[in-house]
């Protein structure tokens, strides 16, 4: 009898304990589930500002047929707003809205008019928006829309990309982008068709005149693979395949022939480009990193180019680094390039734009990167980068750039 009672009591206690454990387990599961997948609406998490000042000089302006000043100054400003959110299924969402405004002056633009009376200044505005989704496995899909407007050029672009993380630590990205552009047919003053309405400037509004445009289309397919090699090393390879068709020259560029007469630059209406880029970054010591980049480029206009750059960030403290860099570039001339008064009138295509000539260039400088806890100078600036570079070409072109980037992060 005692045994039966004790057994019954024991079973009853076991029953109570099992019920309690179920309740506790349920609570734990519920806490675990809600901690992993928390729904969060899209909210502003990051703001990026980038500003640059650029000036250059040279003596091979394409507007004056490969001779003349290439004096240019440019002030660029851009802002990106990054919104991020997540849902209960573990998906993360991102929305980025951007706006850029550039103002430039180009001394050679005055000579779109033969008398040098054309305006030398111009403004370009370029808004953008992109949306991305990332699933629990880190797979990311993104779509973006872009627009750019300046007096003589309008562009509308769209792109889409897909990133997949692999089990071996690699990342494979595919991307496709398209630009639908319109080039206003602003010719040099002495080469305008007689029926065209005269426009006095190349860079600013011309008194309400109606200027015809010609289209330019660009299609780019990108394949990129990034691989972690070990705890201190990672590398990537990127291949672009770019096709362009339409008006690929600029209507206000002149070419002078051997007989001293001139005409508008004329280039083929199709171009295919194939650049391949390699990156390899690694920690040499705990405080010194090597960032390396190499690109091979070839296209159907006869240009073959090599680019190599090396940057050496040195960590002064865990939150401050200084990065000297050097970039070397070399290219062959395009089949369609010749200097001032070298082209023959019998040539089908001709340009004296020295961007298509044979040359090599060097670009060197240094940057500072600061990201201290509590913000830069204890302000809301999470990260600050300042970078200066000096660029020289064997064509005689040289330039200086100084850029500042500020990040504000919640």
């Amino acid at each position, binding site marked *: 009898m005692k045994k039966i009672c004790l057994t019954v009591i024991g079973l009853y206690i076991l029953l109570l304990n099992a019920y309690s454990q179920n309740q506790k387990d349920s609570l734990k599961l519920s806490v675990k589930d809600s901690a992993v997948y928390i729904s969060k609406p899209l909210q502003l998490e990051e703001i990026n500002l980038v500003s*640059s000042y650029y000036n250059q000089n040279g003596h091979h302006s394409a507007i004056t047929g490969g001779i003349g000043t290439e004096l240019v100054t440019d002030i660029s400003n851009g802002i990106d707003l990054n919104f991020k959110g997540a849902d209960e299924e573990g998906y993360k969402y991102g929305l980025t809205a951007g706006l850029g405004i550039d103002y430039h002056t180009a001394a050679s633009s005055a000579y779109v008019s033969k008398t040098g009376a054309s305006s030398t200044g111009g403004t370009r505005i370029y808004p953008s928006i992109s949306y991305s989704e990332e699933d629990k496995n880190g797979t990311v899909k993104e779509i973006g829309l872009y627009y750019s407007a300046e007096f003589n050029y309008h*562009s509308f672009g769209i792109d889409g990309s897909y990133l997949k993380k692999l089990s071996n630590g690699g990342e494979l990205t595919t991307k496709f982008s398209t630009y639908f552009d319109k080039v206003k047919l602003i010719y040099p003053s002495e080469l305008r068709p007689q029926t065209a309405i005269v426009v006095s400037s190349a860079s600013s509004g011309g008194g309400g005149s109606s200027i015809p445009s010609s289209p330019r289309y660009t299609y780019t397919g990108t394949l990129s693979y990034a691989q972690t090699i070990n705890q201190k090393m990672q590398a990537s390879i990127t291949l672009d395949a770019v096709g362009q068709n339409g008006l690929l020259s600029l209507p206000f560029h002149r070419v002078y022939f051997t007989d001293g007469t001139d005409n508008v630059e004329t280039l083929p209406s199709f171009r295919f480009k194939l650049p391949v880029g390699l990156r390899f*970054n690694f920690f040499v010591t705990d405080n010194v990193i090597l960032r390396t980049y190499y690109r091979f*480029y070839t296209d159907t206009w006869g240009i073959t*180019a090599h680019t190599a750059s090396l940057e050496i960030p040195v960590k002064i403290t865990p939150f401050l680094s200084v990065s000297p860099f050097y970039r070397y570039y070399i290219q062959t001339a395009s089949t369609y390039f010749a200097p001032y008064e070298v082209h023959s009138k019998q040539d089908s295509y001709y340009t004296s734009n020295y961007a298509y000539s044979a040359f090599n260039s060097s*670009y060197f400088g240094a940057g500072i990167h600061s990201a201290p806890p509590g913000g830069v100078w204890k302000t809301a600036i999470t990260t600050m980068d300042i970078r200066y570079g000096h660029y020289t070409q064997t064509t005689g072109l040289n330039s200086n*750039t100084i850029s500042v980037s500020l990040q504000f992060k919640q």
Partner: protein
Amino acid sequence: MQKKYTAFSLLTICLLATNSSCTIVKEYQKNKLNDAEMALSNRKVEKNELNFQSYREGASGANAGKTGGGCGCN
């Protein structure tokens, strides 16, 4: 043509050797890999440099910058 083929072959061999010697790095071991200086991309502060390089040079692309279109440039 021979040089291009040789370069491409060497590149492929390097990539295969690198990939075959890769180790799986766990998330808690990625403190160095996640450093801002190690990113396999251009810095935001380089954005306008990439633009002027594409304007003044014949080559472009394979660096997340312009490949053509979007501006009155190459």
